[in-house]
C-alpha cells in the first residue's frame, strides 16, 4: 500500500484509541466538536471549494438533519442514536437540496447562494411555528443514548473519516474533474461535454447529505435542539464557510485544520473574553483573509511547492543538459 493510504489509516487508528487514554469529558467534548466541524467543513468545501458553488445557507441542511432525527425520536419512531436515524437525516437534507438545486442551478450567478440562505431562514421560521411537529421555540429534548462520550467520539470520527475518504475518492475521478472544470469556467466545461446543471446538483446532493448526517449527529449528541441553534446563519451557515476558509478552500485537510482552530479559539476566547469573544473571532478572520487568503493548509502547500520547484530547478548558469 502506498504512503498516501497508510498515513491517514495510521492517523485514524491513533485517533481511535484516544478515548481509551483520555477520560476527561471536557477534552473529549472538544475533540467531538472538532470532528463534527471537520465533517461540516468538508461538506461545504466539496460544493463551495471544489465545485465553486458558494452556499450561504448550509444551516438549512444541518437543521433538516437535526430535526429529522429529533422528530423521529420524539414521536417514538426511532430510538436515539439509531444508525438509520443518521442516514435518514442525511437523505432528508439531500432531498431538500435536490429541490433547491434543481430550481437554482439552471441560473448562474448568486441565485443559488441567496436562495439557500433564504431556505435556511424559511425553515427556521417553519420550525419555530409548526409546534405540533417541532415543539416550536421550546425545542426538542431527549436523553442521549450513551452516557459515555467515547461512543459519540467514535461515531463522529467514523463520520469524518468516511466523508473525507469519499470526497477524496470523488475528487480523484471523473466527478472531481468535472466539479473543478465547472468551478474554473462553466462555458468551457459545457463545451467540453459536461452537463453543468447535473454535476452541480450531484455535488450539492453529496454536500447536503453529509451536512444532514452531521446535523443528525448533533441532535443525538447534544440531546437538545431548537430552531435558533440548528438553523442559525452566524453559528452554522457562516461558520461552515469560515472554518473552510481558515483551513484552506479546496484542500483535503483544510476543513479539519480549520475546525480544530475554530473550536480551540472559540473556547479560549469564550473563557477569557466572555461575550467579547465574537469581536476577537471576527478580527482573527480578517487577519487570516489578509495574510493567508489561501487558508492555512493552502498557504503551506504553496510554499512547499515553491521550495520543491526551487530544489528541482537547475543551478544558476544554465540548464544541465547544456553543461553535459
Amino acid at each position: 500500500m502506498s504512503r498516501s493510504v497508510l498515513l491517514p489509516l495510521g492517523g485514524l487508528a491513533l485517533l481511535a484509541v484516544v478515548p481509551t487514554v483520555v477520560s476527561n469529558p471536557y477534552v473529549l467534548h472538544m475533540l467531538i466538536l472538532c470532528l463534527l466541524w471537520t465533517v461540516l467543513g468538508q461538506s461545504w468545501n466539496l460544493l463551495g471549494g471544489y465545485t465553486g458553488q458558494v452556499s450561504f445557507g448550509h444551516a438549512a441542511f444541518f437543521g433538516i438533519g437535526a430535526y429529522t432525527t429529533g422528530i423521529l425520536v420524539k414521536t417514538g419512531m426511532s430510538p436515539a442514536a439509531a444508525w438509520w436515524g443518521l442516514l435518514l437525516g442525511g437523505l432528508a437534507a439531500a432531498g431538500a437540496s435536490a429541490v433547491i438545486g434543481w430550481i437554482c442551478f439552471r441560473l448562474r450567478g448568486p441565485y443559488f447562494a441567496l436562495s439557500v440562505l433564504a431556505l435556511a431562514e424559511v425553515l427556521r421560521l417553519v420550525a419555530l411555528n409548526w409546534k405540533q411537529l417541532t415543539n416550536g421555540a421550546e425545542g426538542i429534548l431527549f436523553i442521549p443514548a450513551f452516557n459515555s462520550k467515547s461512543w459519540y467520539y467514535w461515531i463522529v470520527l467514523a463520520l469524518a473519516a468516511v466523508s473525507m475518504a469519499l470526497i477524496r475518492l470523488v475528487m480523484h475521478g471523473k466527478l472531481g474533474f468535472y466539479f473543478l472544470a465547472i468551478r474554473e469556467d462553466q462555458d468551457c466545461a459545457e463545451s467540453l461535454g459536461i452537463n453543468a446543471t447535473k454535476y452541480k446538483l450531484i455535488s450539492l446532493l453529496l454536500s447536503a447529505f453529509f451536512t444532514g448526517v452531521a446535523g443528525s449527529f448533533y441532535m443525538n449528541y447534544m440531546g437538545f435542539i431548537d430552531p435558533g441553534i440548528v438553523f442559525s446563519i452566524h453559528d452554522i451557515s457562516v461558520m461552515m464557510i469560515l472554518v473552510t476558509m481558515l483551513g484552506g478552500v479546496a484542500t483535503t485537510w483544510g476543513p479539519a485544520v480549520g475546525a480544530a482552530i475554530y473550536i480551540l479559539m472559540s473556547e479560549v476566547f469564550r473563557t477569557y473574553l466572555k461575550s467579547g469573544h465574537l469581536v476577537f473571532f471576527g478580527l482573527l478572520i480578517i487577519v487570516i483573509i489578509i495574510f493567508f487568503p489561501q487558508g492555512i493548509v493552502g498557504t503551506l502547500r504553496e510554499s512547499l511547492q515553491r521550495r520543491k520547484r526551487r530544489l528541482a530547478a537547475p543551478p544558476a548558469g544554465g540548464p544541465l543538459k547544456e553543461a553535459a
Partner: protein
Amino acid sequence: MSLLELKDVTKRFGGLQAVGHMTFTVEKGEIFGLIGPNGAGKTTVFNVVNGFYAPTEGEILFKGERIDGLKPYAICRRGLARTFQVVKPLARLTVLENVMVSAFSRTDHRGEASRIALEAIAFTEMEAWRDRTAGSLPLGMRKRLEMARALATKPELLLLDENFAGLNPAEVEKTIAIVRKIHESGVTILIIEHNMRVIMSISQRLLCMCYGERIAQGTPQEVANDPRVIEAYLGAAHA
C-alpha cells in the same frame, strides 16, 4: 449527406441581427473556412452551431440530425468540438488535467482519460508544458491547449475560432502543421481565421460573411477575387 448543414439560420439579439439567413454545408473530410471583417457574425455562427445560442430561425443538422436547440454538452458528445477565440483555460488545473476533463466525455475511467489526454497532448506537441497550470501558459500555448482539449473529445467536426491570432510566425507555421495533421487524421474542420495567408493555404472552400450575411462562397481564389469581398475588406474604391 453533409456532415454539417445550416438551413436559413438567423440569430437576432433583440433588434440586432447578428447572423441572417445563413445557409451552407460542410462536407465530411474538408477544411471549410469562414472569413469576414470584424463583427461580421462569424463567432456567433460558431455559438449557434455549438449550442451556446439557439438560432432564432432555421435548422442546423449534424450527421443528418437536428442539433439546434440542444445544449453545448450534448452537441459535444455527438462529436462536434470547438475552440474559443478568447481562450478559456481552466486556469488552476494543469495542462494534463485540462485535457483529461474533456477526455472524460469519452470514458469514465481515469486511466483511460489520462491515456486519451496524453495522446492529444502529444498530437499538439505540448508535452513540455504538461504539468504547468493552464493559467501560467503564454498565449501561443493557451491557443494550442484549446486544440488539445477539443481533440480529446474525439470530434468528427472541429470548429477552430481564430487559433492563429496573436501567434508569432514560427508558431503560425507550427499551428498550420498541427491543423493539417488533425485534418489528415480524419477530422473535418470548420475554421474562422483572419490571417489570409493561412486560410487561403489550408482551406478547400471559403465562405465570406459581412454584417451577418453571406456575401461570397467558393474556392479560396474565387472568394478572394470577388468584388463584394474586396469591398467589404478594403472599401468600394478597390472593388
